[in-house]
């Protein structure tokens, strides 16, 4: 049913368990590049029909059917409080597995798998308030080539109470 993009490639990668360390799946959302440790990534699939669920947070786009398994998908752009954009044929869903919770991340464009050495990761600097919420899910910055990649902590990314707490903070600060 679901067309699987780069699946073979992924499987090869997943087979080499040892070589996972230091490897990151990077993708582009807006102007920024993000990275997720490959160990969380299950597979990457093309965009597919999403069944919307009423009355949930706007970044939860709904449910998809992954070979009989029903998993929720979230839109990373909306999650980061960016303006939602149209889905194109480059839009992908990265299926991640965080502590046995399967979740799909809708991203605008998959970039590549990067190897990032531990020592080239620096903690995010304390920036202004505008970056406040990003810092919640970004645990490190890495420079590869000419781009800076924001490394995401998927556990924080998907945790709902986290964002509620953040929103609470923001409301208070306003």
């Amino acid at each position, binding site marked *: 049913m679901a067309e699987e993009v780069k699946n073979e490639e992924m499987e090869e990668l997943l087979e080499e368990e040892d070589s996972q360390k230091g490897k990151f799946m990077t993708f582009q959302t807006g102007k920024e590049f993000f990275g997720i440790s490959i160990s969380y990534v299950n597979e990457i699939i093309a965009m597919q029909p999403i*069944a919307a*669920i*009423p009355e949930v947070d706007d970044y939860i786009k709904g*449910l998809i059917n992954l070979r009989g398994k*029903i*998993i929720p998908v979230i839109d990373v752009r909306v999650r980061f409080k960016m303006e939602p954009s149209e889905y194109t044929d480059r839009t992908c869903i990265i299926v991640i597995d965080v502590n046995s919770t399967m979740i799909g991340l809708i991203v605008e464009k998959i970039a590549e798998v990067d190897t990032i050495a531990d020592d080239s990761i620096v903690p995010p600097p304390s920036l202004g308030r505008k970056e406040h919420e990003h810092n919640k899910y970004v645990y490190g910055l890495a420079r590869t080539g000419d781009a800076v990649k924001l490394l995401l902590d998927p556990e924080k990314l998907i945790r709902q109470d986290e964002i509620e707490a953040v929103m609470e903070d923001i409301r208070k600060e306003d």
Partner: protein
Amino acid sequence: MAEEFNTESMLDMFLYESGQLLEKLEGIILEKQDADCFDDSDINEIFRVMHTIKGSSGVLMYENITKVTHKLEDVFYYLRESHPDDVPHMELVEKVLAVSDFVTGELDKLKNGDTPDGDEHQLVQDLDEFLGRLKGEIKKQGIQMPQANKHEEPKQFYITPVAGDDSHFYRISIHYRSDTQMSNIRAYSATYALKEVAEDLLYTPDDILSNEASGDVILAEGFHMLLQTKSSKEEVIALIDSSEAEEINFDELTKGEYGKALAEFGREDAITIDLGEEQKPEEKDKKKDKPQPGDYVVKTKEAGKGKTLAKNQPKQQSIISVNVEKMDALMDLIGELVIAEAVVLQNPDLKVPGLELSNFQKASGQLSKITTELQEVIMSMRMMPLTNVFQKMKRIVFDVSRKLDKDIELEVIGENTEVDKNIIEHITDPLMHLVRNSVDHGIEENAEDRTTLGKPAKGKITLEAKNEGGKVYISVKDDGKGLNKEKLYQKAMDKGLIDNKLISEFTDKEIFRFITLPGFSTKEEVTEYSGRGVGMDVVVKNIQSIGGRLDIESVEFEGSEMTLIIPLTLAIINGIVVQVGNSPFVIETASIKEFVRVGEDSLIHEPSGEEYIVLRGECYPFIRLNERYDLADSISNVEEGIVVVLEHEGSQVCVLIDKLLQEQEIVVKPIPPYVKKVKGLSGCTQLGDGSIALILDIAGLLIQDGERR
């Protein structure tokens, strides 16, 4: 590990459960060894582990284990009740590990068939000394000393059989010389000689004394015996008179082989012993799943014949034990099959005009029939009525009410409600707690307290089960004292279980929920039957572990109602797929009363924005699903859409949808827990074309509607 036991004997269960608990215990200890102290949930957990092992070792009379765990339970009791500061954490960790090691050592002895004879004195003395210091500390810190931890002596005991492991099992075949006279009498003498040492003896032919013709059979086919004994091979051989024997075959068997041989010999009671609890037997007759009084009636013995059970027990060959995981996998696969079937039968390729489909239709009809039957079979394999569970509850009400000298009648409703086997296992203990609580704390101590309130002198407890909207509701209702909110609040405050808030800041339900906090027990005096607060928290924990919840309703002086609401984890329902906007929804067929088309003039608009529909003079609440769930591109004119009248527990509601798609069997899947619960939705499913439809929960819709109005 459990799979290794093919007979889940009492001892095996004890070893298995205690082993699991100790593993858990060590997990906690090792995780927290470097911390400053144990937190409340650790203390509760350790207390519970000790409490459980103490209890079961008491029943099996392993006194050294009981004493040691008893002492450690005491220690954690004081920690839990008094929360003293400055507990020497490292020392405590060492103490817990020492106990854990001791018990593990004793369990190992039992596993090897040895007597658990470890000397517990030193350990008990150490713990006593530690406890003494702990109490001193509590006094010094000026914390109120809790009442002494009360221990219940076990009232029932299990005497483990003398180690059956050093028994030997033999298959003995004697072939007599063909000219042997009265070989049947010779054969009988052999059995007679063996009876002296036999723990179990079975032989064939089995009618050697009463039937003279058996002598010929013995000469032709030989005389075969199965023997279980402590004696060695040599000792046994010495007992058999071999004078006329041409050949004696002597095989030593393992226990398993012996069990099989018993079945071959046609002894049917071999089966019941072989059905392990862990590998759940799935018989067609589900009631047989659990032994019942009357299962073991022996048919009157025919002279000289072996015992046979009167009740026709299934032969061993007709039953296989199946791992529950495999059952679950099968269940999932059948769910997938149902979906795949829909994909094939509703395939858009079939909609090409002019296709000759009559053979296809015939074949697909057959396919549908088979898949439907398949589902029914798998469901029936897993479903069991609550009868047995409710039976236990009757017993508890009976026992506890007599013990406490309360006059209580029990009404049971819906005991034939069938629920998934897994669920039965998980609800029995929680339900038992609720029932005990109702008898003990719910119903008033004195009949006069009741009569002055105008209630009948006799208390009443109602136990009710029903299956609705993919959920099982089991409620325990009493007409007793009810819960006193003030008292609950005060107690929770005193125990430091809640934040420092005013009572008015809590809703009634929140206050009732205090009783489910660990360490909360409303009774000043702890009673034997309801324990000391190791109760409601466990109930909630167990129920949550299967995705259910506990609902508490209470009115002071009128009574309380505790309801367990448990989802059916995986079920297949008959549903109608409807469309609203671009989204498909599923409505369970059973809850649909009718579909109607109504005119705009049947609508009543309240000033508040609420709407009602008048049908044949009756007025129903009206929900526009598209507005409720904010769905775009949908029909908003009632005259173009379809109104579905839904019924649930006697209340009706009308829902506006765009169109009907089809009726089909629906595999209910839970909405992934990551997505917060949406009221009015009970699950989701996959349709024939692979898309996902949400399943409407009528009860939820009604509640939500009620709240809004």
